[in-house]
């Protein structure tokens, strides 16, 4: 496949998946409502502790927004292959001339892109209800930080999609992994305040570096180049791992004749 065709395929599937997710009440809740509820909760908590400075509110809004991004990524990608099975399209997609991993890339990016609406929503929420100032220390680096975060989370989403399919009840894994990543990735609580053994785990997670890249550009004392670099490095590692897993999963499904079975 030419690069142009590949890009067109990924773009089309991304957009298609965004529209599919927008038709789901669950994803409306996860993407549009849940980040606002958690942002409000966090705003009140920090206000209760006296943290009313603009920087604190921005820290909270970005963190709560990224919580929504993670939830949408987790649930949107965790069930990606399983949904194709339920809908009866998995066999068609796997056997189509287009590479299946590119279709999956588009599907996971669709979930991540939709999830990033959560950050916009929580920022607007913070400005309107809590008088939060909108500022960015490095406004020119912010788009790069966002792009890096989207790419790394998209790749992580692909890894999630290919590994969760091995577990019969992928949504249950989603229920399990929402809170721990919110915690370990330091979205609202700095990783430095957690036990020391948690830190290496947080370094392996895209949300940690994505959050650091965005926060660094918005409120950081210096440009977050290292975090941006880590996002891209992790994206490559996740994609490679996802590709290997996908080849294994599809080969196993073909060998056992279980491609369309639950």
């Amino acid at each position: 496949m030419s690069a142009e065709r590949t890009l067109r395929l990924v773009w089309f599937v991304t957009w298609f998946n965004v529209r599919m997710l927008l038709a789901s009440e669950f994803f409306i809740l996860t993407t549009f409502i849940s980040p606002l509820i958690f942002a409000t909760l966090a705003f009140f908590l920090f206000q209760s502790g006296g943290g009313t400075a603009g920087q604190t509110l921005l820290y909270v809004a970005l963190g709560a927004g990224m919580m929504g991004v993670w939830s949408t990524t987790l649930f949107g990608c965790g069930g990606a292959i399983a949904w194709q099975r339920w809908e009866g399209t998995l066999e068609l997609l796997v056997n189509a001339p287009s590479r299946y991993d590119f279709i999956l890339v588009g599907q996971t990016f669709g979930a991540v892109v939709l999830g990033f609406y959560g950050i916009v929503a929580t920022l607007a929420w913070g400005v309107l209800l809590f008088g939060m100032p909108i500022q960015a220390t490095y406004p020119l680096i912010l788009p790069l930080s966002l792009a890096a975060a989207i790419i790394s989370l998209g790749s992580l989403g692909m890894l999630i999609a290919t590994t969760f399919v091995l577990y019969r009840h992928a949504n249950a894994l989603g229920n399990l992994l929402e809170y721990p990543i919110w915690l370990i990735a330091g979205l609202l609580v700095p990783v430095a305040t957690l036990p020391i053994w948690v830190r290496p785990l947080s370094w392996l997670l895209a949300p940690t570096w994505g959050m650091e890249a965005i926060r660094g550009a918005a409120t950081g004392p210096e440009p977050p180049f290292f975090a941006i670099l880590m996002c891209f490095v992790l994206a490559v590692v996740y994609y490679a791992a996802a590709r290997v897993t996908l080849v294994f999963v599809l080969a196993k499904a073909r060998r056992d004749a279980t491609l369309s079975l639950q």
Partner: protein
Amino acid sequence: MTALAAPIAPIAPGTLRSAWRVFWYGGRMSYGMLFNWARPSIYIPTLIGGPTFQLLFFAALGSYATDRSPAYFAIGNAVQVSALAGVFGMTMAIANERWFGTLPAILATPANRVALFAGRFMPFVLNGLLVSLYAFGLGIVFLGVRLAPGSLAVAGLALLVTVFSCTAIGALQGAVSLRLRDGLFGANLVTMSILLFCGVNIPVAELPGWMQVIGNLLPFTHGLEAVRQAADGAGLEQVGGLIGIEALVGVAYASAAFALFVYLERSARANATLDVR
């Protein structure tokens, strides 16, 4: 031979015995057959793993953002996690009748509707208690939760009543779901609202007035306050009023749920929409 000697004695549908059977066996069967999470591969990640990390997350966040101890947040969330079983469970126990195609058969029977409806509560209240007690255990071991030994019974009573009222709002959501495409949307919204409005992480007194009004109309607010006070040693004379209000809130939600269920049944019969999705 034995079977012939003892023919099956039909039970008249209007009798108390029949209502009891519908309540007892129907309730138990609803848990096993309609509650999607009643299998280890879903139950453990969702109702054991999820609450574990919820407790740890809010204990870390709360103690970082405020000057309160992790135990404060652990108690609030240990009570709130019962909503996962109560709200989601009851929603599934009622709404899944439609999705699994058993609703018309259920409504075609002359079974006592009160018994049919009330029987659904029992397993989900017990399940909610189990999840909540597990979370309390976690809080005691890892997050410094301490319960005054003299008030354990009072705390237990407050918890039981709170779990009942949360199951009642789940029943209302279940009845509403009989008309919705996705019933779990409302169940998610209810559990998130409880986190925000009911003093689970932020004391109700610190919320704006309009949020306090909503909090007072929702389950959990009074029951959770009773559990908190009982954990500090308050007796029944101090928290009895709170427990009573929580029970009233629960009964009000259960009554509203039953009334809605009956209304929707009649409406569905009249409009021939019993099984329409």
